[in-house]
């Protein structure tokens, strides 16, 4: 089984971050980068599929500047077999531009499955996977939480609000991955050593035209400070009055 996993290098959004001088992007200073959360789950899903089938390869692909090679090497350390770096000075915001480059690379690659994370944890667009599927003319199942492959067909589960949906699809196919398939493994020390010797191919990214641009990024306005209106049972009537008249939540 031959599986491609498309991974994005993103900043850790749990850390404190600042907006850069132009107001259109985050200030890269002090940011810590890693594989986007759901993309990590996708790598794990690919590795487990190949392991359970006893043979095959997992190829990780990433678009961006040279720094993405570090992220690719982490995935190689987890156990991916080889990596493709599609070189681009910047990662465009427009998912179609990115999907074009990925489809150009992957279409003739003979992959049985192309995996994506459900969304990138920084831009949260959820578009690149489905767009790439369309450009390659492949079926696409999004945000799956379970995946089985047998006899050239795939079965996937999706979690809906209060229900589970089971889908079947022919291969090759594009699948975007939610949590639930298993937490991404840590790269073992042997994995880190082995990653140094695994092939990492660099090619120019054939990005499509970018029609979307970010106008401005802004932090939400500061919340007004809280107010203590009293203590104990005596304060309850006033609290209810304010929740009705001021906060308008009751």
């Amino acid at each position, binding site marked *: 089984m031959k599986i491609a996993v498309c991974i994005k290098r993103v900043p850790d959004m749990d850390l404190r971050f600042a907006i850069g001088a132009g107001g259109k992007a985050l200030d890269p200073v002090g940011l810590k980068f890693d594989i986007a959360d759901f993309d990590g789950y996708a790598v794990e899903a690919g590795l487990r599929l190949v392991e359970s089938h006893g043979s095959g390869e997992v190829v990780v692909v990433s678009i961006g500047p040279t720094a993405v090679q*570090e992220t690719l*090497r*982490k995935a190689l*350390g987890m156990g991916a077999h080889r990596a493709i770096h599609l070189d681009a000075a910047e990662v465009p915001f427009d998912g179609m531009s990115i999907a074009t480059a990925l489809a150009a690379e992957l279409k003739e690659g003979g992959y049985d499955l192309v995996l994506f994370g459900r969304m990138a944890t920084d831009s949260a667009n959820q578009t690149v996977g489905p767009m790439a599927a369309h450009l390659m003319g492949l079926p696409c199942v999004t945000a799956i939480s379970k995946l089985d492959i047998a006899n050239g067909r795939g079965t996937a589960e999706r979690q809906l609000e209060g229900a589970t949906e089971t889908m079947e699809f022919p291969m090759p196919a594009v699948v975007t991955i939610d949590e639930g398939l298993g937490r991404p493994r*840590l*790269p*073992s*020390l*042997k994995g*880190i*050593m082995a990653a*140094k010797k695994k092939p990492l191919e660099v090619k120019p990214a054939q990005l499509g035209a970018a029609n979307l641009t970010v106008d401005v990024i802004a932090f939400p306005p500061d919340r007004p400070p809280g107010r203590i209106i009293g203590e104990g049972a005596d304060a309850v009537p006033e609290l209810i009055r304010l929740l009705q008249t001021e906060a308008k939540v009751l």
Partner: protein
Amino acid sequence: MDLPFYFGEEHLQVREMVREFARTEVAPVAKDLDRTSEFLWDNVAKMGPLGLLGVPWPEELGGAGMDQLSYYIVLHELAKVDASHALTVSAHTNLGTSPIVDFGTQAQRERYVPLLASGKVLGGFGLTEPGAGSDAGGTATTAVDKGDHYVLNGSKVFITHAGVGEIFSVTARTSPGPGHRGITSFIVTKDSVDLDRCRTLGVGHAEELPKTKGLRAGKKEDKMGWRSSDTRELILEDAIVPKENVLGTVGEGFVNFLKTLDAGRIGIAAVSLGIAEGAYGEALRYASVRKQFGQAIANFQGISFQLADMATEIQAGTHLLYHAAWLKQNGKPFKQEAAMAKLYCSELAMRVTTKAVQVFGGYGYTTDYPVERMMRDAKVCEIGEGTSEIQRIVIARNILASLEA
């Protein structure tokens, strides 16, 4: 600190992985393990497959094939979250495994190191005795030559992994003392004391390994710190040790374990520095959110100057540690630098953790916050693998010897 002079991308990847492991697997259990003094078996089972129990050993021997720096990075990072985890890796790798790698025959290496390096079983080092602590020349355990085997008698105390471990290097007298001459090292084996747990987890016990008759673990110490690290007596009672288990040359045991201890000092420096950094990180965060007198206590010079001192001394300790590690890695003499790193970083760990408890005020004195545990964990770093006084003796001897040269 990124230390570009010492660290390459591979080191940063190791650091990243261990940080993630410490955050997700160690931090949630550290407090409970400390309270119950239970050994960290579950995480031993997880650390083996990640390669953390055989970092610097060659892949042919089941190790991860990484360098010395990577090994010290692992200790440093684990100790930031829990010293007992770091110490377990350190005692197993340096005290338990390195003597066999460094001084063993090819047959001994092939027999024991793969079991140890993969984390299948834990190892330890039996040097200290009731009458031989700082002065290892006082070793009283005897080894009597019986032709094809030796018979060992004696008691080793404070032996890390004496209970949970299965493979040990121990020292004994093959010719009467006093002093350094006539001490020989032997490889001895026993069953883990937690066989049921080991069988369920699939680690900690090697059925196929022949065990030494007459070797057993004694009483477990109830310690102030390093509480989930296993420390016990190791008792040799007419223990029958075949001659093929002599480690190194007969009579050369003393010289060899001094080498093991030199390297171990860099390890304890790494553990100490990790404890200091862990406590400093807690204090820094707490000081920025704890409000008294209408503002964060970090705004008071009395607090911020303490934080500044901690940060400065931690940076100094970091350079001492990685300088000593770099010397060792590059085959240069490192005895004095290792002693300096151990002395400075262990005393630093005590200073920083004490200050961290102070920054936390009354809360720091309770088990609701980890700084009191870190303070207890720090103390033994000034004692184990050579007390601070012994480090000063080593350093003083070296600097005075340079006068004579």
